[in-house]
Structures are given as structure tokens and as C-alpha cells.
């Protein structure tokens, strides 16, 4: 089925390594897992067509060791490297090394990775593609009069940041017009004194937001979207629960959002799977671009479940230089999907990680259930990497069925020997606020507070 890629080295571990191995096997491509000494007895190593030990346990010496991975790819003669997520997936220099060594990097070019990895550059591209960005000054403003003008045009509350500031210094939220002139005056003066530079950035200050992102597939020429995912349920900026479609968007908002993401990708002739991230302001019902992720994401299965599109297989086919053979009109969003990221963490104890041995593991099953996990009975979670033990994805004909099915699956699943976040997830998705669909990024924190 593939032309150039006959073998893929998976430069990752855990569930995403397994996910990619499965995609390779379905594409008829040889899968070569890499593993650190800490991971030698894991499911990806067992299920891959072959496996190569690339270094000792610490990630810097193994999964983040670019030299070791490129060397392994060359020595073992693979055609392509899939970086998964995390580790080297958004390192432009690694993509460059692959390119330089004649290895296909399954992702966009090094050039696009670095362009999109630069927030200021990315915002400029977004602006040029008419993708809404958070209203604010185009860069630093030096003149008081100009700053006042911009601030008045943006509306309130707004955020003033000293250009030379950072880490919270030289930053002020302005709640209303009443204090604008004085605030602006003060912060510019202070900045002049403190940093010798009075210039400021001015930005709309968003207080009630959701996190919504759009999944894209692009072959460098055409680009389609697979709808959006809503990742608003976060704890300390860590996504906990993702779902699709977003319960916040109307059909026309969805269409606008997704079209804007496609415009952005087309602007840079994007070529791979990718995600455009937005904040959605619950108050003014507007979405604003924040960044583009140039890799496959943890939560990609949520989009797979509602579209039937295998994102990893499509991503590999694009890397094989194939033309996208799915048209936008072929994509039908069907039902609702929710993903819970299950971690070996103790929710009763500040979510502290609980590495250890899983004495017994029983995945949940049945209609609409997908458990992407590298767990097995007897598996020992090593202390070197993150604490995610798997992703439970549930599909339902509607959001309500998806929540109920997830609840059923969470209680059916059995992970013995370590503490997990399963019960916490069950509480979260069954909270009145989550069920209502009406919440923002602070919701999980307040849920946790209520419990104490």
C-alpha cells in the first residue's frame, strides 16, 4: 500500500508506540520499536516486528537521544521514523537530522516545525491567513497615545505587559476604562524605570475560556479537517478529558473554526497530520488561535472515533508522499466521543505519580469502548517517564451515552497494584457541570476544591 516506506522506526514508547505499530501492521509496513533498558519487557517491544535497544532508562539517554535514534535508524536500515508525541516529535533539529540522513520523518518538514514552533511567527501567519488571534497590539507599542488608542479599541478587561518584563513582572490587568489612562501611564513609567524600556504589549484578557482544537490532515496541497476536539477539562494545564464534538459550538461556529484552521495549514502548505489550537471565549463566543501542534496528539483517537478516519495511517501515507484521498465532503461527524487520560497517580494526594507493578490488569470492553494502553498484568511502570497508563475512549450516539458508557467502562476496568485516576475521572465526567457541557478551564480546579 505504501510506495517508499517499507519500514518505520517508532521513536517513542508506551501506548503511542503501540498505536503506531498497529497502524504500520495494517499498512503492511515493517515496524521497528526502539526501547530503553527500562522498557525491554513491554508490549510495544513484543508486538513490533522487531525492536532495538537504544540506551539506558533516562529519556535523555534514550528516547530523547537524537544521535542514538538516527544511528539506530541507519544501522538497522529503516525508511522512516515516527516520533509519536512528546520526546522528539516537535524538535525541528531532529526532523532536520532525519532529512539530512535520508530518513523520512513522519511529520511536517523541519522548516514548518520551527516556523510553527515560534509563537510570534505563528501568530503572524495566523493573522495573514485571517485566523482570529487574541485581539491586541501587533507587537510592542512605545508611544503612550498609540497605546491608549489600541487599548480603547480592544475593550475590557485587558492585559498590559511590559515588553521587557517577564515572569509576571510588569504585568497588569485593567478591568475598566475608568483606570485605563492611569494604569497605562503607571506601567509604562515603571517599565521605563525597571527595564529602561517603556514599551508594552496590550492584549484582551480572557477570563472564561475553553480549549478547543481542530484536527487536520494535509498533503502539502489539499487539507481537510476532522472537526474539533474540546480539551477544556484540564488540571494545571494538563488535559484530563477530551471530547468531540465540543458541546460549546454551534454548527456555524464549528464551520468557521474548522475553516480557519484549514486556511492556516494551507497558508504554510502544511503536510502531515496537525492540530490548530484555540481558546474559545465563553463570554464573547469567539475563538482565538493560540498555536499549532505539528505532531499527532494524545487525544487524536477522539476524532478517529467520530469520523472513522485512522489518523496515524493517513499521516504515514502522507509521509509516503501519497495524495490525500479523502475529501472534506466524505467526512461525516457521527456521534460523540470522550477520552479519559488515565494516569498512575493518586488523586487523594495531589496527583502524585505512583509508579509500581500492576499486579492485575483487565481492560474494559464492549460496544463503543477503545482502550489504548500498553498495560499488561505484571507490567511495572518505570519511574523515568510520564505516568500515563492508557487512554480510555468511549463513543456514544450522543454525549450523554458517551458519558454513561465511559462511566461503565471506568468501573469495569481493573488496574490493581497502583493508584490510578480512574475514579476521579468518573467523578469528573459525572459532575453536574461537566454533564451540562457548560464549563471552562478552571472547572476541574474548582471541582477539586469542592471536594476538600
Amino acid at each position, binding site marked *: 500500500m505504501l510506495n517508499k516506506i517499507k519500514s518505520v522506526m517508532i521513536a517513542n514508547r508506551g501506548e503511542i508506540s503501540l498505536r503506531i505499530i498497529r497502524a504500520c501492521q495494517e499498512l503492511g509496513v515493517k515496524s521497528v520499536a526502539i526501547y530503553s533498558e527500562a522498557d525491554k519487557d513491554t508490549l510495544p517491544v513484543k508486538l513490533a516486528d522487531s525492536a532495538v535497544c*537504544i*540506551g539506558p532508562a533516562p529519556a535523555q539517554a534514550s528516547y530523547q537521544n537524537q544521535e542514538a535514534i538516527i544511528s539506530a535508524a541507519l544501522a538497522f536500515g529503516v525508511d522512516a521514523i515516527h516520533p509519536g508525541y512528546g520526546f522528539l516529535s516537535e524538535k525541528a533539529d531532529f526532523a532536520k537530522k532525519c532529512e539530512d540522513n535520508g530518513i523520512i520523518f513522519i511529520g511536517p518538514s523541519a522548516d514548518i516545525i520551527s516556523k510553527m514552533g515560534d509563537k510570534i511567527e505563528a501568530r503572524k501567519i495566523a493573522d495573514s491567513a485571517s485566523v482570529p488571534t487574541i485581539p491586541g497590539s501587533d507587537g510592542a507599542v512605545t508611544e503612550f497615545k498609540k497605546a491608549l488608542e489600541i487599548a480603547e479599541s480592544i475593550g475590557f478587561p485587558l492585559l498590559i505587559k511590559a515588553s521587557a518584563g517577564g515572569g509576571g513582572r510588569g504585568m497588569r490587568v485593567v478591568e475598566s476604562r475608568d483606570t485605563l489612562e492611569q494604569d497605562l501611564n503607571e506601567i509604562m513609567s515603571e517599565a521605563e524605570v525597571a527595564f529602561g524600556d517603556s514599551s508594552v504589549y496590550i492584549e484582551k484578557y480572557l477570563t472564561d475560556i475553553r480549549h478547543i482544537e481542530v484536527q487536520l490532515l494535509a498533503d502539502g496541497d489539499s487539507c481537510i479537517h476532522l472537526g474539533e476536539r474540546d480539551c477544556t477539562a484540564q488540571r494545571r494545564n494538563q488535559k484530563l478529558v477530551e471530547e468531540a464534538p465540543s458541546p460549546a459550538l454551534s454548527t456555524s461556529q464549528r464551520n468557521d473554526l474548522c475553516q480557519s484552521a484549514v486556511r492556516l495549514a494551507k497558508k504554510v502548505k502544511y503536510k502531515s497530520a496537525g492540530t490548530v489550537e484555540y481558546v474559545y471565549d465563553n463570554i464573547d463566543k469567539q475563538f482565538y488561535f493560540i498555536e499549532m501542534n505539528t505532531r499527532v496528539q494524545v487525544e487524536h483517537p477522539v476524532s478517529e472515533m467520530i469520523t472513522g478516519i485512522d489518523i496515524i495511517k493517513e499521516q504515514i501515507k502522507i509521509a509516503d508522499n501519497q495524495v490525500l484521498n479523502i475529501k472534506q465532503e466524505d467526512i461525516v461527524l457521527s456521534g460523540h466521543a470522550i477520552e479519559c487520560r488515565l494516569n498512575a497517580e493518586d488523586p487523594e494526594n495531589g496527583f502524585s505519580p505512583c509508579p509500581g507493578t500492576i499486579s492485575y490488569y483487565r481492560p474494559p470492553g464492549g460496544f463503543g469502548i477503545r482502550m489504548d494502553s500498553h498495560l*499488561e498484568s505484571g507490567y511495572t511502570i518505570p519511574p523515568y517517564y510520564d505516568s500515563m497508563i492508557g487512554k480510555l475512549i468511549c463513543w456514544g450516539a450522543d454525549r450523554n451515552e458517551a458519558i454513561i458508557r465511559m462511566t461503565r467502562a471506568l468501573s469495569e476496568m481493573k488496574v490493581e497494584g497502583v493508584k490510578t485516576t480512574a475514579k476521579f475521572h468518573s467523578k469528573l465526567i459525572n459532575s453536574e457541570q461537566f454533564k451540562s457541557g457548560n464549563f471552562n478551564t478552571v472547572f476541574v480546579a474548582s471541582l477539586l476544591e469542592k471536594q476538600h
Partner: protein
Amino acid sequence: MKDFDISLNDLKQLTKWVKESSDIRELSLSYNGLELFISRNESTQRSVSSDAAGTPVTTAPAPSKQEQPELNKPTIAPTASKSSPTADVSVAENEHLITAPMVGTFYMSPKPGAPAFVEIGQQVEPKSVVCIIEVMKLMNNLEAKVNGRVKEIYVEDQQPVEYGQPIMLIEKE
């Protein structure tokens, strides 16, 4: 205290029994200065003994990039679980095992056609270069580290090696 005579054969029988009893996870036995402890992985207990494991990747020569060879027809069926690189080598007290310090390609000689750095039986000193591991076109010399004699060479010339893979065994002198 009554003695009872445990022979190596008895121990073998015991371990064989443990191997066959799929549900035994750990066994430890201590008697008269003899201590036996067996612990098995729950998940991997199906493929415990190293000889039962699949062909280690280490011995499966992968084609080099340049030849663009026909890879094994990509099979849908995954291979058996892999043994750890060091699984099938035992090292005695007076021996020194040289393992690959990084993943790469193994070379026995400084350049193609040149004589090998060392051969089996050859005397080596700590500073003797015994082989090269190529890592991203960088040639890394491996030294013997000990005084002794080359007893075994586990890898063939120009083959890829994993991290930690046994390369040579030196009998110390």
C-alpha cells in the same frame, strides 16, 4: 541438625518444575549455605528462559541502508517477544564482556578490506582498539579495557548492534 543432600540435579528438577508450573511467581530456598531464588515476570512468564525466546534482534542482520534491499516482506504477524540483548551471554569471574555503548554499526577493521583489529585468541591490552562502532558516520573506537585474550566475538562485521549488545568476551590475564 539433619543434613539433606541437595544435588545440582535436584535443583535443576526444582527449577524445571517452576518453569513448567505457569502460576509460580517466586520461589526462594535457603538451606545450609545454599540459596536459591527464582522470580518470574507475570506478563512474560510465558517466554521466560532465554533459549525459549524468539530470535534476538541482535542476531538478525538488518540490511544496510545503502543496498536498499528487499526487506523481509512486511508481515502482519508480529514477531515473538525479544530477549534482552545480554540474555544469552554468561560471563565468568575472570572474563570481561565488551558491550555496545551505543546503538550503531559494528566494524571489525579500520576500513573495508583492512585486517581486523583483533581475532579470537589474540592478546589485548587495556588500550587496544578492538573494533569500531559507527554512530551517525562518526567512528567510535572501542578499547579492550583489560589485559587479556579475545575469547569470543559475538557480532559479524558491518552488522548493526543495539545498545548494550554483547560484542566481545575477553579472558583476563
